[in-house]
C-alpha cells in the first residue's frame, strides 16, 4: 500500500471502529431497560430508585459517547487527527497499521461474541466455541509476526539467533494455544451458570423455590459435571488439547536449546550433556546386568557338573 492509499484508507477504518463501538453500546443500552423493568416491578421502592439511578448514569454515559463518537467520525476531525500521525516514519505507520488491523479483526469478533450474550443457553451443547477469536489471532500472528521471526539470520551467531527466534515463536504459539484451551475449560462454568439461572427462573415461576442453598449447589454441580463430560468428548476439545500439549512441548524443547546455548559459556553441564551420559550409563548397566546373570548361570552349571563328577 502506498502513501496515498494509506491517507485515503485511514479515515475509513477509524470511522468504522467508531461506528461499531457506538453500535455496540447502543444495542447493549437497548437491552437494559427491559431487564431492569422486570426487576423493579416486583422490588422494593428503594431498589427501583437504585435501578433508576443506574439507568440515568448509563444514559448519560451513552450520550457522552454518542456525542464524542459522532464528532470524531466527521471527516474534518479525522483528517486533523491523522495529519499529526503522517509525520511518523512510514515504517512505524506500517507497524501501527498492521497491529491495528489485527486488533480491529479481533475486536469485530468480540463484538459478535458480545452479541451472543443475550442468546438462550442450551444445556450440554458446545457448538460454535467462539474459537474464531483465537483463530483470528492465530491467523494474524502467522501472517504478520511469524514471518519476521522466520527471516533468515546472518553472521557468526546465526544459529543462536535462529534458536532464540524459534523459542520466541513457540512461546507465542503456546500462549495462544493455552489461552484457547483455558477459555475452553471455562466454557462449561459459564454455560452451567446460565442454565442454572434459567432453571431457577423456572422454579420461581412454578413457586417451587427451595430454601436450601445446597439444593442449588447440587443442581449446579451436576449440570457442570455434565457439561464437562460433553466438552471433553467433543472433537473440538480433543483437537485443542492435542495442539496445546504439542505446542507447549515444542516451546519447552526450543527454550531448552536456547538455555543450552547460554550454558555453554559457563562451566556447567547442560541437560543434553547429562542425558548423553545417562544414556551411556543406562546401556552399560543393562549390559553388565545381563552379563552378571549369564555368569551366575554358568557358575551354577559348572558347580553342578563338578558335583556330578565327584558323585
Amino acid at each position, binding site marked *: 500500500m502506498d502513501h496515498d492509499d494509506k491517507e485515503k484508507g485511514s479515515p475509513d477504518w477509524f470511522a468504522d471502529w467508531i461506528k461499531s463501538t457506538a453500535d455496540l453500546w447502543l444495542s447493549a443500552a437497548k437491552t437494559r431497560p427491559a431487564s431492569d423493568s*422486570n426487576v423493579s*416491578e*416486583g422490588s422494593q421502592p428503594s431498589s427501583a430508585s437504585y435501578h433508576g439511578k443506574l439507568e440515568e448514569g448509563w444514559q448519560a454515559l451513552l450520550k457522552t459517547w454518542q456525542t464524542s463518537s459522532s464528532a470524531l467520525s466527521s471527516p474534518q476531525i479525522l483528517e486533523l487527527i491523522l495529519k499529526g500521525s503522517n509525520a511518523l516514519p512510514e515504517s512505524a505507520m506500517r507497524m501501527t497499521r498492521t497491529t491495528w488491523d489485527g486488533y480491529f479483526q479481533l475486536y469485530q469478533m468480540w463484538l459478535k461474541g458480545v452479541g451472543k450474550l443475550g442468546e438462550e443457553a442450551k444445556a450440554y451443547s458446545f457448538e460454535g466455541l467462539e474459537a474464531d477469536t483465537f483463530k483470528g489471532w492465530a491467523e494474524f500472528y502467522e501472517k504478520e509476526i511469524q514471518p519476521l521471526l522466520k527471516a533468515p539470520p546472518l553472521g557468526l551467531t546465526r544459529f543462536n539467533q535462529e534458536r532464540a527466534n524459534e523459542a520466541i515463536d513457540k512461546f507465542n504459539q503456546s500462549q495462544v494455544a493455552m489461552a484457547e484451551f483455558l477459555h475452553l*475449560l471455562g466454557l*462449561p462454568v459459564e454455560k452451567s451458570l446460565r442454565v442454572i439461572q434459567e432453571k431457577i427462573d423456572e422454579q*420461581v*415461576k412454578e*413457586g417451587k*423455590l427451595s*430454601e*436450601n442453598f445446597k439444593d442449588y*449447589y447440587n443442581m449446579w*454441580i451436576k449440570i*457442570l*459435571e455434565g457439561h*464437562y*463430560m460433553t466438552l*471433553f*468428548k467433543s472433537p473440538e476439545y*480433543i*483437537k485443542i*488439547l*492435542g495442539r496445546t*500439549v*504439542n505446542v507447549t*512441548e*515444542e516451546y*519447552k*524443547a526450543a527454550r*531448552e536449546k536456547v538455555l543450552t546455548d547460554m550454558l555453554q559459556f559457563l562451566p556447567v553441564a547442560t*541437560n543434553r550433556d*547429562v*542425558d548423553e551420559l*545417562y*544414556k551411556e*550409563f*543406562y546401556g552399560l548397566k*543393562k549390559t553388565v*546386568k545381563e552379563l*552378571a*546373570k549369564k555368569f*551366575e*548361570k554358568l*557358575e*551354577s*552349571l559348572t*558347580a*553342578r557338573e563338578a558335583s556330578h563328577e565327584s558323585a
Partner: protein
Amino acid sequence: MNQPKISVDLILAKMAEDVGKSQKHILKSKEVLLGPLDTKIASTPHEIVYEEDRVKLKHYFPLAETRVKTPLLMVYALINRETVLDLQPGKSVVENLLKEGIDLYMIDWGYPTRKDRYQGIDDHVNGYLDNIVDFVRHRHEAPKINLMGICMGGSFCTMYSALHPEKVKNLITTVSPSNFDTDKGLLNIWAKAIDADLIADTHGNMPGDMLNMCFLLLNPARLMIDKYVGYFENVDDRMFVENFIRMEKWIFDSPDVPGEVMREFINDCYKKNLLIQSKMELRGKRVDLQNITMPVLNIYGRFDHLVPPEMCEPLTSRVGSKDTENMCIETGHIGIYVSSKCQKELAPKIARWLKERDGVERKDFAARPAKAEPKKETGPKSRPSPKRTQKVVAAGSRS
C-alpha cells in the same frame, strides 16, 4: 406479569439458623484441624528384603497363620504409589490379605529421576520384575509364585506371565487394561490425541504433576470443586478429616513416569492396541497371550472411568488358560481398594481363589537367585513373629 412468590421470611429464618450452625461448625473445625491428626498411610508392618536401583521389595509380616503356601507378589502401577493398597488400618487390602493367611510381597517402584528416562517396559518386566520374582522364588524355594497386578502393574504382570509362564502359578489382574481399542473412558480418547514421542523427548520423564492434572481434568466439577466442598462441610469430623487427608496424601504423591515407559505404553498399547492382539514385543520376544496357561482371575470395576470394563474383560478370552474368571465389582477404579464394601469382598475372594489352586510344588534350585541388596529395615515392627525372624535370616543370607 405474574410475579413469583418468594418466601423471603422462610429464607431469612433458614439463613439465621445456618449462621448459628456455622459458628459451631467453625469452632469444632478449628479444634479438629489444629489438634493431633492420625494421617499416616502404609503403616502395616513390613521389611525391605530386596533393592535394585530405585526399586524396593516389601515383605509384610504375617497377621495370621499361613493358609496359602505360595507367596503372592503384588505389582502396582508406575503411576501414583502402592500405598493406596494400605491406606489405613481397617481399610487396607494388604491387611485383609494378611489376615487371610497370605504371605505377601509388594513392589515399590520408587521415584524415577532423569537418569531413569531411558528405562522402558522391558526394563521393568524382564528386568526388575523378573529379578524380584526370581528372588521370591528362591527365598521360598518355590518354582512358581502367585502374581497380582494393579492397573498398569496388571498389564506388566500379563506381559510377564506370557513371557515367563514357568515362574507364575496363578495370575490375578485388578483393574488392569489389556484391550485399548475402545472409546469408553476419557483417557483412551485423550491418549490417542497426544504426541507421546514429543513429551518423552522434551520432558525426559512424564512429570507426575502433569499426570495428576490430567486426572483432575477427567472430572473437574467433582475433583476440583465438589470434593473440597464436601471436605469443608465435614471438616469438624475428625475421622472424616483423617481419611480425607490420607487420600489426599496418596493422590498427590505422584512419581514421574519414566519417559520410555510412557512412550511405549501410549504408542504400543493405547494407540496400536498390541497387547491384546499378542503383537507386543519386549526385547525382541513376542508377548503371546496364549502362553498364559496358568489360572487367571480378572477383577475390574463396573463404574471405572479410568480403566472401564471394556479394557479389562477381553483378557480372559485371549489367554491360553482354561481356568479363567472375570469378576466385576460394583465400584470405580480406586473404590475397589478403598471402599468399605469392596474391602469385605476383594481380599476374601482372592484368598479363596488362591487357596483352591494352591497345590504344593517344590523344585531343586540349582541356579543362584538374583542378588539382593543389603537388607534395610523399614516400617513399624510392632507385631514381630518367630516366622518373620526366620525369613529375615533367610533374606540376610542371600544378600
